[in-house]
């Protein structure tokens, strides 16, 4: 009896986190709907959200994976853009627009290429962090710079355009009446959720993030696991890059720079502890939807993109304040 009480409360509070997120999402939805019912509640608005949020959602899941072990990956945007650009250059080299199949085969190769760019970039981060013991912030800051730089060198500045139709399908198509990016996001979120909570890899990451030293004494292969976590982050980042460039049908070295802040915000808002050991894909998914409602609402209210950046920043600070306040009360 003596023990069961706090335990019960803890279980509640764990679910509370998700419950609070859902409440917040509904609140944002209601406020935005009330402010501009005509435009916000239109089917078109929701449809466009299902095209827009997956790339950010995947980036946020990538951030979650890095944060689980107490790290961070500041190079995700660089990886995403570099992947898209390399795929684009590949298409320019081999694809003839006369191809009647829409270039499915070529695009499959392009996806493979983009993913291997992500894997290689993630492996580089993982190598720097686990083998050379560089702090994740600095390592990924540097590599992010290198990736963005390479992207710039490859394109010379302007965007690469002219992707095959099959590539366009990834970003703008429909599967069973649902946006392809949305379907991809759901698949990725379910897969990552399963990997993080039901496999040895995921649990090892959680344990390593909770106490790296104890992980070594418990015989966990810390270096290898952290390495694979950055590899996973890289893969996810390049997936986001594929979706992004598919949707815009272009690739550029400085696309999505504000996504870095947003991905971190979503991770923190979704209940991830930046110090490691805590975080769920479910939390991230709800947080990304909430913030998409917020930004779509503001766009409908004709706020400029810059003002929306301001709001994202303010929201991040607000979340920090609320989290701190909640922890203090508890």
């Amino acid at each position, binding site marked *: 009896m003596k023990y069961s009480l706090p335990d019960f409360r803890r279980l509640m509070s764990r679910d509370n986190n998700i419950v609070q997120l859902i409440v917040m999402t509904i609140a944002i939805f209601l406020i935005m709907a009330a402010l501009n019912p005509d435009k916000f509640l239109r089917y078109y608005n929701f449809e466009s959200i299902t095209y827009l949020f997956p790339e950010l959602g995947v980036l946020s899941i990538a951030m979650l994976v890095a944060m689980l072990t107490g790290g*961070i990956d500041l190079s995700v945007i660089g990886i995403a853009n570099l992947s898209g650009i390399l795929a684009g250059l590949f298409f320019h080299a081999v694809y003839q627009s006369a191809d009647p199949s829409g270039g499915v085969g070529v695009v499959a190769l392009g996806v493979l290429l983009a993913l291997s760019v992500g894997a290689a970039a993630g492996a580089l981060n993982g190598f*720097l962090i686990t083998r*050379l*013991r*560089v*702090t994740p*912030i*600095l*390592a990924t*800051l*540097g*590599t*992010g*710079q*290198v*990736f*963005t*730089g*390479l992207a*710039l*060198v490859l394109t*010379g*500045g302007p965007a690469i355009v002219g992707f095959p139709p099959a590539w366009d399908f990834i970003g703008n198509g429909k599967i069973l009446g649902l946006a392809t990016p949305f379907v991809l996001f759901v698949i990725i979120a379910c897969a990552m959720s399963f990997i993080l909570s039901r496999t040895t890899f995921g649990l090892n990451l959680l344990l390593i993030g909770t106490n790296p030293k104890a992980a070594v004494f418990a015989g966990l292969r810390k270096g290898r696991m952290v390495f694979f976590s950055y590899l996973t982050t890289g893969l996810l980042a390049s997936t986001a890059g594929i979706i992004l460039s598919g949707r815009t049908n272009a690739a550029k070295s400085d696309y999505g720079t*504000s996504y*870095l*802040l947003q991905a*971190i*915000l979503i991770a*923190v808002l979704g209940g991830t502890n*930046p*110090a490691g050991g805590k975080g769920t894909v479910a939390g991230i998914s709800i947080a990304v939807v909430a913030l998409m409602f917020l930004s779509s609402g503001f766009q409908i209210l004709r*706020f*400029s*993109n*810059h*003002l*929306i*950046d*301001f*709001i*994202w*920043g*303010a929201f*991040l*600070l607000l979340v*920090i*304040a609320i*989290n*701190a306040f909640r922890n203090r009360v508890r």
Partner: protein
Amino acid sequence: MGLFRRSETIIAAILLVAMIIIGLINPAFWQLDNMFSLLRSNVVIGIMALGVLLVMLSGGFDVSFPAFAVAAMYLTVKGMLAIGYSGVLLPFLCAVAIGVLCGCLNAFFVYKFRMIPLIVTLGTGSMVRGFLLGVVGTSIVNINRFPPELIEFAKTELVSVTRPDGSHSGLTAMLLLYLGLALAVHLVLRYTMIGRSIYALGGGAEAANRVGFNLRKTIFFIYCTAGALAGFAGMLHCSMIWLANPRDFVGMDLVVIAAVVLGGASIFGGRGSVLGTMLGVFMLVMVQNSLIIMKVDTTWQLVVVGIIIVIATVATAWRDRRRQA
């Protein structure tokens, strides 16, 4: 102390070797013109780096200062144009004040909510830049409208050489401002209690609290000073290039942080020095500058800076591991 001195000598030695190599590849490197422009490029980055050093010494991480610098310079110049004021001292004071104000915001969140400074400064930086571009405006104040007094001030030269063929080169006097600020920060860090409290905070926040340091004061001092230095650097920057662009300094955070890390400061706090930081800044600026001299395409700059960050951090990680061993 010996360790600090040693890591600075190492940086200085690497710097010297690099200078000799670059000089051998392209002798134009040693020309007075190039030296002057090299030193000139140190000024703005260097002043910003001093602020980043303060934050890093305390164990924090700041990515908001480029936004603060832009906000300070753009708001000040816009204000000057609006009221038709022209002068030098007041605009600089105003920019510093804006920087301090922004710094307060960082300090408040870092102190009050104990949140990781990287995340706080990501938020404040995005807010300040978003506010500037979204509310104040996006238009560039170019040389036609730029306050002439500021241009005149920034044109002041320390040494000026006019060659027989009529070509002219000069060493900007702004270098003195940089050196003066560096000396001031050095003295504060070494000879005042507030300076020592920054090192103490970086060494261990809990211990600093128990010994009786007023951590609130220290944290506010750090972030406000960093903000002030950023504001000052921003103002100086626009005066030196004769235009105020609200989209300026994008990506500057990485360059400056790279310089500070290159200068031997530890990202975990407690270790680092002004001299090391100045050497780090010089090294980074020199590499960027030499890329141009060696006719490397400017698009490669990011790649090179990134590689330098990686190498510098690998080297410091290696050093720290040896220190522990």
